[in-house]
């Protein structure tokens, strides 16, 4: 018996030693087959995921060599406490996908969804399998903290479940103010900030100035649209921070281009990775919509749909300078916002519907919500850094911690809850 147990543990040890770039393609190939894809197609898809992951790792190296010294220079020269660079998905991804269980997040997430549908705990059929990725991050963090895969699994189930339930409750705003009937966002990011926005909805309607103060969306979109381009503001922010850090002109310009490159290239790597998953999404979507027809249920989409609302686009751009200023004055914040500055719309993806697309309310709430995220990102940084190192991520030279502005709030909540039992330290 012990020989069998030994063989099993050797086998799993070997799987883990393969690393995500090999383990992911193999696992996704098998999952693709299980979802009824042709072997050749499934093989190519799995390989694309491995390639995208490799590309993301390449980017992390480049980010490390530029962003690390920049954060250091800023801390030394200005005395600002912003010692934790925000490296965005470059840290989310390795942490999530170094977990063997991550390869099975799609079937597991669907299972949780189906069980909840059958028990009538939710009305949402989550057809966008990418909504399970943030839930997997809860798993990774809680398992990383407690050492228990079971607690990680519970955190995953909790995150999927609460996002479905909140998604149901928030769907009426999507129908009314985004004009998309039958749609919900069972996404862990939007479900949390939608929850946070509820009291603000009530509060804003009781402040006379804010209640009716709104801006013309079309003209604003025309005016600030080009400023919102992520490569342009990446360049500007990179140069600006370089000067603050005391770099000379040449080095500042070079750094500006690198920051712009990060904002453009990270998503490009993700595109490759994601494209390998579409056929599995497609198979899951077909299977789910046949069993749970759309007119009786909400169809769950990624909250990226809400980010593409005109009102959310404007708020996202207005929040960029606000976020940078807040990073310097928010007590307790150590995060230097960088890689995730292109995604500030996600904080208001759900709330904009609740605020009836009111730009002023969106900016006020967005600033508050991003402040919450900065503090979460700062407090979870030690854990995130340790997990990233274990996953093989390059940590920037001279920097002791990394984190990300888009730290998934339910992952923070479940990790915080777990930390109550492990001694309160992340």
């Amino acid at each position: 018996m012990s020989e069998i147990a030994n063989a099993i543990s050797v086998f799993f040890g070997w799987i883990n030693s393969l690393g995500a770039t090999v383990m992911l393609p193999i696992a996704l190939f098998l999952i693709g087959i299980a979802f009824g894809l042709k072997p050749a197609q499934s093989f190519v898809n799995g390989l694309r995921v491995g390639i995208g992951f490799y590309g993301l790792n390449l980017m992390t190296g480049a980010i490390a060599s530029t962003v690390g010294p920049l954060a250091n220079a800023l801390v030394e020269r200005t005395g600002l406490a912003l010692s934790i660079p925000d490296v965005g998905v470059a840290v989310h991804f390795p942490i999530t996908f170094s977990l063997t269980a991550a390869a099975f997040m799609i079937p597991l997430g669907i299972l949780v969804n189906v069980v909840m549908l059958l028990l009538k705990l939710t009305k949402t059929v989550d057809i966008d399998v990418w909504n399970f990725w943030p839930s997997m991050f809860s798993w990774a963090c809680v398992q990383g903290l407690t050492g228990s895969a079971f607690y990680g699994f519970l955190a995953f189930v909790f995150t999927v479940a609460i996002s479905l339930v909140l998604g149901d409750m928030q769907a009426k705003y999507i129908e009314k103010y985004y004009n998309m009937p039958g749609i919900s966002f069972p996404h862990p990011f939007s479900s949390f900030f939608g929850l946070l926005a509820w009291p603000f909805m009530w509060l804003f309607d009781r402040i006379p100035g804010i209640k009716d103060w709104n801006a013309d969306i079309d003209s604003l979109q025309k005016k600030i649209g080009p400023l919102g381009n992520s490569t342009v503001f990446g360049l500007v922010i990179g140069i600006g921070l370089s000067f603050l850090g005391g770099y000379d002109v040449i080095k500042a310009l070079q750094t500006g281009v690198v920051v712009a490159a990060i904002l453009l290239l990270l998503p490009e790597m993700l595109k490759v990775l994601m494209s390998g998953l579409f056929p599995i999404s497609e198979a899951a979507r077909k299977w789910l919509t046949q069993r749970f027809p759309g007119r009786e249920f909400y169809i769950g989409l990624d909250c990226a749909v809400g980010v593409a609302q005109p009102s959310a686009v404007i708020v996202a751009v207005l929040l960029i300078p606000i976020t940078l200023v807040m990073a310097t004055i928010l007590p307790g914040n150590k995060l230097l916002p960088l890689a995730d500055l292109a995604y500030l719309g996600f904080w208001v993806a759900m709330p904009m519907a609740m605020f009836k697309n009111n730009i002023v309310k969106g900016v006020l709430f967005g600033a508050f919500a991003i402040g919450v995220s900065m503090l979460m990102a700062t407090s979870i940084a030690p854990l995130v850094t340790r997990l990233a190192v274990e996953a093989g991520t390059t940590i920037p030279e001279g920097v002791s911690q990394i984190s990300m502005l888009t730290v998934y709030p339910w992952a923070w909540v479940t990790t915080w809850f777990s930390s109550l039992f492990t001694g309160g330290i992340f």
Partner: protein
Amino acid sequence: MDSNKVYKIASVCGAGYATSGWIAARLNDALQLKGIKAEITEVKVVDLALVAANFDLIVSASMLSDIYNVPVVASSSIITGIGFDETLEIIIKKLEEVSDKK
């Protein structure tokens, strides 16, 4: 409709890689079945303003205001499947108008 033209379409969502990519993949398959050639690029919505002019059509996960001098079609039905055929018809009609103009 010009059968040799390769239409340039921007698929827009908040992040520019997941939802928009999935929409792009499904739309590409559907257009191919109709014999229409298209080159579909995923665009994150904050980046759209500077690149909009490069495209014949914008399909956006949510309905964007029509301010780019390029026709915009809401595309979430392409993944939900509800209203898919109607959306496809609108897209093809807009593409026809583009090819008539040029």
